[in-house]
């Protein structure tokens, strides 16, 4: 019990470390721990699903059943939230959900890094989704794009009030999409860091209290990682649905 004095550094595990400095055409492409853990989660998703469906049988084994449930879950979500030919967007939604989910969950392994706790990562995902939905909307609806900002059945007197509100609420979409995921991941991991510090700093007879609570919180973090990935992808579905079907 004579380890070094524990220091309160709850933000320590959000530090981005560059393993390899890399610059191409003036763009910073350094390989950081965030990049590495994104690779890890993408590869983990790929390998797990490959392994689970290695020898598909009519009567599925345990792994195959899990993979099929995972697929059906996304298909259900897409069917429910995108009217019309929503199945066309299933691969996008599937990839997005499991990428975000694995980024969230793998970050809970002690010593691992959570890419989704970086605003840059979540903002890139959110801007990508937003840009895609806007492009889809322009392609599908053409000029009707602008009609979406004026809800039908409204007295014309209210239009100067409603149009700016609708436009602002539209513009806030990527911001809240990015910040929501980032803030949730950061908050949870910070609390875990503080609890771990308490567990180390308290005298031996009180250690069980913060450490026990951190176990509960780990369970909560798994739940939140799942819920946040779900919300991110459901909102993506809603945006795509908005782009496909005018109200």
């Amino acid at each position, binding site marked *: 019990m004579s380890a070094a004095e524990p220091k309160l550094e709850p933000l320590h595990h959000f530090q981005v470390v560059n393993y390899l400095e890399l610059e191409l055409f003036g763009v910073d492409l350094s390989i950081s721990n965030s990049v590495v853990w994104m690779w890890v989660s993408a590869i983990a998703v790929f390998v797990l699903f490959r392994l689970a469906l290695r020898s598909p049988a009519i009567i599925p084994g345990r792994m195959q059943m*899990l*993979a099929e449930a995972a697929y059906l879950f996304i298909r259900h979500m897409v069917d429910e939230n995108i009217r019309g030919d929503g199945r066309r967007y299933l691969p996008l939604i599937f990839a997005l959900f499991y990428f975000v989910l694995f980024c969230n969950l793998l970050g809970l392994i002690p010593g691992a890094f959570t890419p989704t706790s970086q605003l840059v990562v979540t903002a890139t995902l959110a801007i990508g989704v937003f840009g895609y939905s806007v492009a889809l909307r322009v392609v599908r609806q053409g000029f009707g794009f602008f009609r979406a900002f004026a809800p039908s059945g409204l007295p014309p007197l209210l239009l100067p009030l409603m149009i700016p509100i609708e436009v602002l609420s539209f513009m806030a979409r990527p911001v809240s999409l990015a910040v929501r995921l980032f803030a949730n991941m950061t908050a949870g991991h910070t609390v875990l860091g503080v609890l771990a510090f308490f567990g180390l700093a308290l005298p031996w007879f009180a250690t069980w209290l913060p450490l026990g609570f951190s176990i509960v919180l780990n369970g*909560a*973090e798994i739940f939140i990682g799942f819920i946040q990935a779900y919300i991110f992808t459901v909102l993506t579905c809603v945006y795509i649905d908005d782009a496909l079907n005018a109200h």
Partner: protein
Amino acid sequence: MRKAKAIVKQTAGYQWAIRVGTELVAATMIGLGVGYMLDKWLGTRPWFLLLFFLFGVFAGFLNLYRVLQLDMQVQQDPGDEKDS
């Protein structure tokens, strides 16, 4: 097991608070930004800032309403299927 699940869900409640806060703040900030830009462009400080601040707050509540509608859907769904 059911009790453990309930405890976890209660502890995870703060994610709801974060979401509500984010929703309100994001739209308000966007409104403030747009108002500031318009003022700078037209030289009408502070009128557009004030106006778009209000618009932003309303937009925030609108977004909040929409997201919480989705939230109800999550609660009704068997949303806690086991993930792989």
